[in-house]
């Protein structure tokens, strides 16, 4: 069975640590040449207060609080450039204390029909025991699978499956590679992982999701 291409996809990169949200403004990114000037000029600032910076550009949504830095690619953009934005940011802010990083991919797939859509939920979460006790037609709303990765120590992979809120008869997958910061040079360590894993994490996420979808759509 050929791989499905998601109707909507995106990437998100999250860092946990200690941040100064006031720094993160569109003009700062343009001045550091991390964003094109025109993209920064057209950015829509949602919130800019000492505790929170939140703005959107043509390609990214950036949200920074004192404990969390998150950049998400928009549905109209490919997530590949997100890595450069984050690596560039923390190449400049090299003393930022960080504790963990998450590489996230988000995908909405169209199943084509209500029947096929239900098949996915029924395969992932068989309804037999629920039907014996619940009224109506029980359905899967959310399932998260977590596994420990072999390397580096403490890293985890999790995948969430839900009905899509965006695509009719669609299934939403969200994957997360979670890396705790190494004790020595935490920021440099995480940026190294980001450089090595960003593209591979996306390929791996797509492989896992397509495996699950293929499995769920066969032998029903």
């Amino acid at each position: 069975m050929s791989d499905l291409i998601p109707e909507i996809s995106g990437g998100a990169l999250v860092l946990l640590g200690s941040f100064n949200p006031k720094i993160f403004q569109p003009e700062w990114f343009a001045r550091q040449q991390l964003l094109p000037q025109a993209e920064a000029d057209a950015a829509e600032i949602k919130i800019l207060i000492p505790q929170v910076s939140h703005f959107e550009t043509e390609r990214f949504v950036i949200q920074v609080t004192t404990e969390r830095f998150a950049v998400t690619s928009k549905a109209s953009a490919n997530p590949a450039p997100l890595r450069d934005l984050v690596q560039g940011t923390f190449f400049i802010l090299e003393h930022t204390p960080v504790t963990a990083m998450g590489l996230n991919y988000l995908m909405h797939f169209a199943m084509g029909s209500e029947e096929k859509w239900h098949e996915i939920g029924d395969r992932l979460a068989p309804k037999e025991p629920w039907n014996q006790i619940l009224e109506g037609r029980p359905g899967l709303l959310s399932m998260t699978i977590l596994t420990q990765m072999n390397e580096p120590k403490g890293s985890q992979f999790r995948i969430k499956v839900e009905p899509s809120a965006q695509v009719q008869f669609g299934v939403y997958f969200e994957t997360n590679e979670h890396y705790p910061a190494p004790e020595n040079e935490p920021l440099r360590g995480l940026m190294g992982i980001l450089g090595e894993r960003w593209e591979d994490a996306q390929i791996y996420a797509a492989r896992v999701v397509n495996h699950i979808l293929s499995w769920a759509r066969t032998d029903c």
Partner: protein
Amino acid sequence: MPQGLSTTFSVGQERTADAQSAISGSADSGPIFEFSSESSVDGNANPQLGSTFSSLQITKEPGSVADYRDPMIPTSATFQPAARMLKISSREPKLKTRQLWEGTVIGVRNGGFAAVLRDRTNPSNPDEQGSFNFEDTEISADDLGLIHPGSTFYWIIGTEVTPAGQVKNVSMLQFRRVPAWTELRLQRNAESAHRLRESFQEEA
């Protein structure tokens, strides 16, 4: 499930002070951009699901900073619109990437440039070479100054679905933006290397 992991699990589980995760927009991962447990799905494409969907795919937008649950934020302030993790609006176009290449410029000539292209969609494919004319290639004006031998870019080919439902083929180049080494940083690194060399010499 291993002990200690459940606190970083999905929505609805008991929260603890160390319940931190780097999953994007996860409701258990950080207090500030987390929506209330009553958050509801707006415009759900699958109406059979009901109204209390617990994902951040799209959620009710909080109307005041109190919705961010950060005790550091003054509760009297209001703002509009508020943050949400995934900005997928029906008013925005949606890109379906069918092919992604990463290119490295190997030569610039009048009216265009040549590049080596690595297939990022199917990394096992061999590298290729390609020529790009400035006139025929979708490059933003801001990126033109970044084109020189050695610079790298993404070439994205796909389809874009407009808010009106029109499907367009798109091909765009986005040059990678990596910060330049500054004199100060080079100097600091040189000093660091010098200290390292001296420590080796002392040990020898």
